[in-house]
Each structure stands twice: as structure tokens, then as C-alpha cells.
């Protein structure tokens, strides 16, 4: 118990030197958020990166502090939905999905139907919404594909929907059409491998 307390005090006392890029007031406030996150066993690297992003972009201190506080809260919500064993990358992706409009229930459901890691599935959900797909449609599509689709399949699905939207298709309709085509492919056993950011197209018979 004493050892744990000493360890905790030591960790809190040591401030990340990268935060030196912030002004004194902002640095103190961000360090307090980081310490709170550490005590709550939340990942601190995303919080530090958000603060550094704000510093590099020249954002005012109060805006940086508000951003990192909101991120810490959202990380807590994401962990409540995904469980304590969730990876840092999964939590970050879950935050993006939450901010895109997915509910914690959707994220928890995704955890139940798909093998971890859930990073790509959650990211695809967030990116679909960013492309204009309604949040409920994006969530329904990802949940439908999640049990069988591989990460690369999900990325290809997202890119296909984005292409259709760019060509003028309504986002919701594009999602439905691609979901049906993707469901046929997944159930047929075809899979795609490779770089998820540049997936090769699936061969069709």
C-alpha cells in the first residue's frame, strides 16, 4: 500500500517535458488533467497529443485546456462502454465515434459482436459520419458488418461509400447499397488483405 502510494506520488510529480511547449498556466492546467487521467487509469498520451496539437496550432490556452478536459471525459465514457481491458487505440477510436454521434450503447454492442481490437470498426463508424452519413445509419452498417468483416473490408466499405457520395449519391442511400453488396461479399467468404489505407479491390466472380 505504501509502495503504491509512493509510486503514485512519484508519477504525479513527474511532468511530461513535452508540455514545456505550453505557457505556464496552460501547462499547469493540462498537467492536472493528465494526472487525473493517470489516477483514473485512462490513457494519457492522447491527452498530451491534443495539448501539443493546440500548442503547435497556436490555440489560446483556455481552448487547449477545454479540449483536453473534454477529451479526458470522453475517454472515460469510451472506457465505460468498452470495458477496462480496452486498448488505448480502441479508446481513441471510440471517442471519435462518440463525437460523431454514436451512443455508448452502440459501442458496447460493437464490443459484443466483434473480436478485438475494435479500433478500425470504430474509426470507420466515425469516418462515415464525417462523410455525411447519418450517425444511426453508420452505426447500423458497421454493426451489421462487424461480426464477419475484416478491418480491410470495413475500410473498403467506407471508401466505397465515400466514392458514391462524391459522385452525388445521398449518404444514407450510398451506405445501404454498399452494405448490401458488402454483406453478400462477406457471407461469400471473400476477404481483402493489405494496407488498410489502400486496400486492394476484392475480386468478384
Amino acid at each position: 500500500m505504501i509502495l503504491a502510494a509512493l509510486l503514485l506520488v512519484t508519477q504525479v510529480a513527474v511532468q511530461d517535458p513535452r508540455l514545456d511547449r505550453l505557457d505556464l498556466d496552460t501547462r499547469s492546467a493540462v498537467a492536472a488533467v493528465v494526472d487525473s487521467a493517470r489516477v483514473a487509469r485512462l490513457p494519457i498520451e492522447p491527452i498530451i497529443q491534443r495539448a501539443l496539437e493546440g500548442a503547435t496550432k497556436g490555440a489560446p490556452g483556455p481552448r487547449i485546456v477545454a479540449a483536453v478536459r473534454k477529451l479526458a471525459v470522453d475517454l472515460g465514457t469510451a472506457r465505460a462502454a468498452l470495458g477496462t481491458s480496452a486498448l488505448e487505440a480502441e479508446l481513441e477510436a471510440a471517442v471519435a465515434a462518440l463525437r460523431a454521434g454514436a451512443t455508448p450503447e452502440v459501442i458496447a454492442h460493437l464490443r459484443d459482436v466483434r473480436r478485438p481490437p475494435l479500433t478500425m470498426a470504430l474509426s470507420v463508424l466515425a469516418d462515415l459520419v464525417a462523410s455525411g452519413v447519418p450517425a444511426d445509419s453508420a452505426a447500423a452498417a458497421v454493426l451489421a458488418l462487424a461480426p464477419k468483416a475484416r478491418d480491410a473490408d470495413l475500410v473498403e466499405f467506407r471508401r466505397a461509400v465515400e466514392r458514391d457520395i462524391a459522385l452525388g449519391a445521398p449518404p444514407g442511400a450510398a451506405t445501404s447499397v454498399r452494405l448490401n453488396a458488402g454483406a453478400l461479399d462477406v457471407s461469400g467468404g471473400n476477404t481483402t488483405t493489405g494496407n488498410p489505407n489502400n486496400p486492394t479491390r476484392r475480386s468478384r466472380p
Partner: protein
Amino acid sequence: MFEQEDETVERVIQHLRRSVAIDPGLDARVMREIAQVPPEGRRGRPLWPLLAAAAVVATVLVARPWNRNAASQADTLQFVLVAPQAASVALVGDFNDWDPARSPMQTAHGAGIWATVVRLAPGRYRYAFLVNGVEWRADPNAPAAKDDEFGTPSSVITVGGRGS
């Protein structure tokens, strides 16, 4: 001479043929003594099998082959931006502490196609291009970051892990 030697040999033979009386409790006493020796005193037992087993366990615990961690699944990715008028372009994001000096982009023969390569572990990253040190640009070939709290455009990239 030979008779004398024969007698000597005969006496030796007779001596050796005498039965030797051995205490029947000897074995039990010897085993009891061995059992009472502390572990560090057992010189005859080699330690290398124990050390080898410990080394194997330590190696497995450190390497954790069941946990295909970020480093083992990292992807090498190329980022490209077409900016013919730019004098300099830097790639900044969650993967380099948003430090423009860490990932300066290069252009081939001044064609205005700027590129750099970074190695990323599985995860979701926010990033942007910093043109001429002042102008922020999102990646036109990647999803936009929806939660842009600092008033400048950013993009996101997700590097998949197992199953991708």
C-alpha cells in the same frame, strides 16, 4: 622362491574371501543424512535446468508473443501532398508530437509533390500538413477530423492491427 610366493598369494586370497559384515541400517542412515543437507549444500545437483527454465519464462514474459503489440504490427505509410507553390511542407500529427521539425516532407525535382514516409503502430491518428510554416492543410485523400477544436483542418488515419 615359487613356493614362498604361492603361500603369500594363498594368504591374500584367503583374506579376500572372508565375508564382510555390513551394518544393515547403513543405507537408511546415509539417506537420512542426505535428506538433512540444506539445498545450497547439494553440490551434485546442477542448476542449469532451473536457470534455463527461468530464462525461457523471462523471455516469454518480456516478448509476450500472445500480445501482438504495436511495434510488431506497425505499418510504413507514405503521406503525399501536392503543393506546387509551397517552399516547405511538414507533416505533423499525433505520431510526432505535432512537431514540424520531426517529419519535414521532400519534393522531387521541385515538382510540387511533397512526400514523406512514417512508420505507425496500430491506432487512430490526427494529422495535418503545415505549408510554409504558417498554413494548415488537411489531407485531401483522407477522412477529415470532425472534432477540430483548434480552428484549423486536420485529417485522420487509422492503422489496423490483427485482422486487417
